[in-house]
């Protein structure tokens, strides 16, 4: 692990924190345009929201103070998961970056559910419960998807694959499909934003948070979302890096650009769909994940 590795990784984290709220505004702008209206006045709207929340009072319900622990855990795990991606250079966690990625993403999701439990609100708990059901299905597929992507490059590490991976196109594409689907689900967007489902849960998991706590909660959600887009972007960037040799700062730029593109595509999909029901969502996901996983691993086994 060299100094430059660490620097780029830290830069990625910094950029993530800085632009996730901006991307959220882009999201809102895009949605507004699809709704035939103008939308937020500037690209910094979500930042303004956060700035305002930081100046507001914290109202803590009985026993709700414990919420700060899972809240910081969520943000920290999301950031750690992000730093296991190769931002143009091998990640500081290479060659075990995949393991760390899986671990930290899981930690981020789990602690997010804990927020719900520790806030003790009935809606939050239902939201957390839904989140749990969804995450437990999704996380299995996510692990399988990540592994399949890595296996189809021949190297069990993203950082390694970017340098000396041997990409087998067909299994790669199939595993990528599986992975990107899981990542879309973990970005908690419609139709899978079940935990926050406003019409029945009144913004579920985050319902009890106020002021700076809420700002923190929003940043955590956005970081989780950024992570989902960044992992998808990495999976797209890997073959480009490997075969056209875009490393270092340009590689960093490539990853960032792709992340933004993936974010926008996610936003577009979310804007044009409705919210699913938890039972239906799980059924749909399983019916998509099983064939995709089987296909990916068969292809890998038979060495296409």
């Amino acid at each position, binding site marked *: 692990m060299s100094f430059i590795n660490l620097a780029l990784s830290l830069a990625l984290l910094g950029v993530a924190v800085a632009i996730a709220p901006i991307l959220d505004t882009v999201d809102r702008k895009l949605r507004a*345009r*699809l*709704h*035939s*209206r*103008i939308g937020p006045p500037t690209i910094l709207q979500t930042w303004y929201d956060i700035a305002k929340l930081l100046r507001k009072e914290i109202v803590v319900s009985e026993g709700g103070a414990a919420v700060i622990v899972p809240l910081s855990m969520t943000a920290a795990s999301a950031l750690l998961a992000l730093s296991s991606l190769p931002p143009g250079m091998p990640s500081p966690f290479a060659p075990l970056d995949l393991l760390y990625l899986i671990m930290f993403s899981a930690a981020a999701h789990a602690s997010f559910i804990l927020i719900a439990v520790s806030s003790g609100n009935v809606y939050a708990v239902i939201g957390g419960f839904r989140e749990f059901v969804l995450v437990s299905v999704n996380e299995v597929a996510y692990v399988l998807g990540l592994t399949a992507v890595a296996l189809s490059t021949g190297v069990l590490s993203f950082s390694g694959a970017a340098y000396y991976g041997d990409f087998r196109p067909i299994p790669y594409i199939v595993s990528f499909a599986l992975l990107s689907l899981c990542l879309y689900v973990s970005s908690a967007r419609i139709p899978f934003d079940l935990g926050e489902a406003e019409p029945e849960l009144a913004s579920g998991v985050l319902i009890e948070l106020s002021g700076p706590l809420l700002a923190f909660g929003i940043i955590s959600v956005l970081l989780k979302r950024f992570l989902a887009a960044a992992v998808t972007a990495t999976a797209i960037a890997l073959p480009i890096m490997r075969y056209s040799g875009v490393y270092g700062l340009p590689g960093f730029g490539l990853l960032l650009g792709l992340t933004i593109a993936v974010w926008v595509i996610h936003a*577009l*999909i979310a*804007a*044009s*769909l409705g919210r699913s029901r938890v039972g239906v969502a799980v059924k749909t996901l399983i019916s998509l994940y099983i064939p995709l996983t089987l296909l990916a691993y068969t292809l890998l086994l038979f060495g296409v």
Partner: protein
Amino acid sequence: MVKPILKLITVAKEAGVVTRKYPYDSPLLTEEFRGKIEIDASICWGCGACVKACPSNALTIRESMDVRELVYFAGRCIFCGRCADVCPTGAIKVTKEFELATEELEDLEQVVIHRKVKCPICGKHFVPQPLGRYVCEKCAKGGVPTYMMVCPECRRKVGVKKMIRCKGG
């Protein structure tokens, strides 16, 4: 999944951005809109027809010794415009004003003060001056304006006295 995305894009594209940039742009008002009312104090008689017609008590009358105040409280107004319908002098006009937001409820009040006519006999104040003048003018055509500016009680007394005198004479 692709179908709804395409459909949404088509619908959004056809509609374009429809947002009216109020307050930088004009509001979406039609010429028929009924906003706040305005009372023209110069022609108001203080007769109280509007007060009687007002369903929500937005128009009220405050009586004191020598003054009758017609109070319009826009905060309670339901903007039906019935007052303008019934106003005999056309003093009440419905405007298109709707930007009434304020921190102080007082700002929403419009008061028209009517000094009352003083009875030359007993010195009591009884009817708003313009209303009194109007009644005088109307009755002047009939030819008996003499006791019109006298309060009803004194008028009755005077009338009775007069009658007695007539009979007696």
